[in-house]
């Protein structure tokens, strides 16, 4: 069950971030981003689907990927807090993606080298490349906005101030993740720190941004202790599914 839960944590991260990005649909600042953002959302939701499916198989209770996504409440979701943060503006949205992808890319690369789970290895091989693209796309925007106009630089700094405190949680392993690491299914989260800091450091240097000291990182997502936004996100996401129990779509 520990591996099941650890994979569920990963799946929730991807679904919730994909959902948040999809909220931009049709409202991006330029047409090119109306194409790029669904692309990123699709990568994330695709990964979530495979992981939910794998988690459900490990659980062995016959649940489907949709049961996982649509029938768990806010206390049962296990995503980290970073991914559920609201979109706010384009600066927040791009920074959030950069933070996440800069963690996931080394995580998947490490997974490829060590995992004993074939499905997880398959996900890692595909997702590693996608995350490289997310780093590039979001990172370029962070640079453009950070070293752009006065307003864009201010917004970028606000985004860093708002979101940096949620990045510490990326490197924490829940008890379930710790077991999955011990069993050789997933790599040790804390080990990604150097690679993450390297990417963020490079981007921030070009973007004229500084990473703040964080005396108290915000955590809790892995225990289902979320912010108030996630409940609203899920209420909307699950509305049709829950209104028609047992239907096929």
């Amino acid at each position: 069950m520990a591996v099941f839960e650890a994979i569920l944590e990963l799946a929730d991260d991807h679904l919730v971030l994909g959902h948040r990005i999809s909220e931009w649909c049709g409202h991006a600042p330029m047409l090119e981003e109306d194409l790029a953002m669904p692309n990123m959302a699709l990568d994330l939701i695709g990964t979530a689907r495979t992981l939910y499916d794998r988690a459900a198989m490990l659980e062995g209770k016959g649940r489907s990927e949709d049961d996982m996504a649509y029938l768990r409440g806010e206390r049962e979701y296990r995503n980290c807090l970073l991914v559920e943060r609201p979109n706010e503006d384009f600066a927040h949205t791009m920074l959030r993606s950069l933070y996440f992808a800069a963690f996931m890319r080394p995580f998947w690369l490490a997974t490829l080298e060590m995992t004993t789970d074939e499905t997880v290895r398959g996900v890692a091989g595909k997702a590693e490349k996608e995350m490289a693209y997310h780093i590039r796309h979001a990172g370029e925007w962070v640079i453009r906005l950070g070293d752009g106009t006065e307003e864009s630089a201010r917004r970028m700094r606000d985004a860093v101030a708002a979101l940096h405190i949620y990045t510490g949680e990326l490197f924490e392993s829940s008890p379930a993740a710790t077991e999955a690491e011990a069993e050789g299914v997933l790599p040790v989260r804390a080990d990604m720190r150097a690679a993450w800091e390297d990417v963020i450091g490079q981007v921030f240097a070009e973007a004229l941004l500084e990473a703040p000291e964080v005396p108290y990182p915000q955590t809790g997502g892995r225990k289902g202790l979320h912010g108030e936004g996630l409940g609203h996100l899920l209420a909307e996401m699950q509305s049709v599914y829950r209104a028609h129990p047992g239907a096929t779509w």
Partner: protein
Amino acid sequence: PEFLDTFQKRIDAEQKIEPTDAMPEGYRRTLVRQIGQHAHSEIVGMLPEGNWITRAPSLRRKAALLAKVQDEGGHGLYLYSAAETLGVSREQMTEELHSGKAKYSSIFNYPTLTWADIGIIGWLVDGAAIMNQIPLCRCSFGPYARAMIRVCKEESFHQRQGYEIVMTLAQGTPEQKAMAQDALNRWWWPSIMMFGPHDADSQHSDQSMAWKIKRFTNDELRQKFIDATVPQAEYLDLTIPDPDLKWNEAKQGYDHGPIDWDEFWRVVKGHGPMARDRIKDRKAAWDNGAWVREAALTHAEKRRARKMAAE
């Protein structure tokens, strides 16, 4: 006049007109209007479907819908590019959309009220669009024809996907089937109206036909669409909301009941239920994004300046 003759001969010989070729002002104007309108329709069309991405009732459908809406953005992009070859900028077209000067397909001024609308839009609205667009793949203006080839391929995928959503609902619970029927009831007539006024009342048709911008009349295309769609509805055991609809053995096609042209013109003139909301949303996206576009430009200039300084 001699120029017009030569031009018409090239058209008649099915030669493609390219952006650098000389062309009559009316030809250029008609194409700019039509391609722009078409591009705007793709862009505005992202909104009614985007409205259901966050509520799509399965992850598979959510992903497919995201991909579809993304494709529509892509179509908008090719089409703006095709229009740009005629010397009109995307910025200018966008402003005309926001000011109400440029039109987009009226169908997107109806709301998507239930999940079934997503299926029905794919089936009927994309279906009608394809009927209109397949002949455009042979349009005399090269860039438009080439854009349409790519667009049509993706649209027909969307149409099959939409039909499959409706089929799943029609074969689902009684509530799901009712939802599909309700959506069909609401979208049927607007879809039929997508082909425009009857041939007798259509302004632009004759010249566009001569220039091979258009190859079939509104009524011809409408007939094709109805004839293709009725058996599909029958297969799903759904009822098309037209009591006068019946097979006409003589013409080997369906006769349909009278179209509510008052409704048509009301919506065309910008009084459709979602007209104000659509433009408000598009403007908000554009205005809220102004600082991003400006920052991107400023950054690019800084970079250029630094590069030049370094050389």
